[in-house]
């Protein structure tokens, strides 16, 4: 490691030596890969439980529809389109920036200091240090549910809908990614923020797994419109299905819904940058 350490030392991310940075990230991922291979049984169990988590989320929707034909005015097939879109988008985010959840541990133990001394930005370091390869199978399953849902629903295909069908999971992934970064940034100000972030990341996933017509009052307004979760899966699904929004938003809202990821990413970036500047180490 000494030699590689020296070659990185003179290089900075912002400088022209992008190749050096790529080598550094490759080394981080390679380290993760090797450590994973040394605990094969655990890795297999983690791979299984990860895909299992998404399987159970989808199964839950089927179980609930055993008791009733429609939930919040939507059929099983329509609801599965929202569940599938959420599952796909959420796993995209979880696979890439999901382990940023660990930021509080890095802040508490002071490990973040080590990362700050390296000539690489902290966010990609956090991402690549612990790239959760165990979540790959989950991504395949999430994409499959979304694909099947698109097939079983009677989607009146147009060029616009084809584009929307392709962009919506990416928008959902970006949005959830922003929520992951935003909630992890809490740790810069409140180290013991603990599970609060889960309420918005996993809570947001649960919220967007069902048509938002099932929620009521201020709770729906808060999550769907103020926080933007209503545009992650519900609105795009309405547009794909060609259904009018029972809650009154115009039909075009669904087609532009994936753009909600942009302000979310902007807010998350701002929170992250402010947090990094605010960080003064634990002092230990």
């Amino acid at each position, binding site marked *: 490691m000494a030699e590689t350490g020296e070659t990185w030392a003179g290089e900075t991310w912002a400088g022209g030596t992008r190749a050096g940075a790529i080598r550094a990230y490759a080394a981080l991922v390679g380290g993760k890969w090797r450590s994973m291979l040394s605990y094969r049984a655990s*890795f297999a169990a983690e791979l299984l*439980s990860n895909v299992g988590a998404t399987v159970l989320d989808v199964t*839950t929707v089927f179980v*609930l529809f055993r*008791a009733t034909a429609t939930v919040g005015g939507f059929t099983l097939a329509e609801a599965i389109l929202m569940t599938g879109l959420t599952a796909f988008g959420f796993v995209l985010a979880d696979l890439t920036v999901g382990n940023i959840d660990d930021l509080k541990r890095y802040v508490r133990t002071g490990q973040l200091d080590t990362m700050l001394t390296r000539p690489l930005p902290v966010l990609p370091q956090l991402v690549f240090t612990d790239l959760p390869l165990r979540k790959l199978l989950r991504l395949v399953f999430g994409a499959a549910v979304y694909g099947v849902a698109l097939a079983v629903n009677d989607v009146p295909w147009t060029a616009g809908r084809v584009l929307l069908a392709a962009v919506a999971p990416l928008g959902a992934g970006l949005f959830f990614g922003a929520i992951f970064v935003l909630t992890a940034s809490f740790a810069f100000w409140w180290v013991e923020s603990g*599970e*609060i972030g889960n309420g918005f990341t996993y809570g947001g996933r649960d919220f967007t797994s069902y048509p938002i*017509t099932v929620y009521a009052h201020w*709770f729906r307004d808060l999550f769907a419109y103020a926080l933007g979760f209503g545009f992650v899966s519900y609105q795009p699904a309405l547009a794909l299905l060609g259904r009018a929004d029972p809650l009154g938003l115009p039909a075009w809202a669904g087609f532009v819904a994936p753009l909600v990821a942009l302000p979310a990413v902007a807010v998350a970036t701002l929170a992250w940058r402010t947090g990094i500047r605010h960080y003064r180490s634990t002092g230990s």
Partner: protein
Amino acid sequence: MSGIDARVLTISPDRPFRASITTFGALAWSGFRRYSTYRQATIAGSFTNIVFGFLRCYVLLAVAAGAVGNRPGGYDATQLVTYVWVGQGLLAVVGMWGWTDLADRIRTGDIASDLLRPVPPLVSYLAADLGRALHAVLTRFIGPLLAGVVFFELYRPHRPQTVPLFAISALLAVIGSFGCRYLVNATAYWLHDARGVQMLWTLGSGVLAGLSFPLRLLPEWAVATLWVATPLPGLLQTPLDVLVERDEPVTQVGLVALQAVWAVVLLRLAHVVQRRAERKLVVQGG
């Protein structure tokens, strides 16, 4: 002088029972005190439980609105609401997730010092866990319950025996959950890294204990199999069913008795596993 000193509470030869009780009580109190120092975590955890309470409550109410007779799984709307909110509070009391103390100590080798103590690890961890559960009853249980009372209409039990039976059922749920967690953690004696097993446990326990939805929404055969063949419904579903009076009084007592049987089986199993591990234990670390 304060009440804390370096004396070790040992089991005295002349008054063994009383000394054991004192030791157990002291260990439980230490568990209580440990969790009472995590104030911010308590607040953060309650917040998250409340968010999930809203999510699950609204989804189940939407299911009830479309179900035959508005009674999915035999629950009416107020019973479902109570099921969700008390369930969110009870989740923290039962504490199914996040306990890796034993596995961590096995991995690092610290377990060696636990084995030198005059109290077996199974007993000392059980005592500390009961202390943790009591702390959760006084803190984590309250938040979701209040949210349920404020924003929804909760079910009022009609039978006089319901609340005491719920208390017994909740205690058995804590013991059952502890037994399961001890067994999950104890796999570290053989695997060193129990994370995979722990993830499988976290995954299965929530759904199969009735957290995501009441298990009565599943087909009959699945419900019967889960109840008899696994301890999982006893961790949440049974106490909640007791509280919302889902079944006839006799059935309820029967379900709680089943929980008791599982609690004994799990503790016995944990004891056997611990003995087996001690016989071949190679302490890790330096």
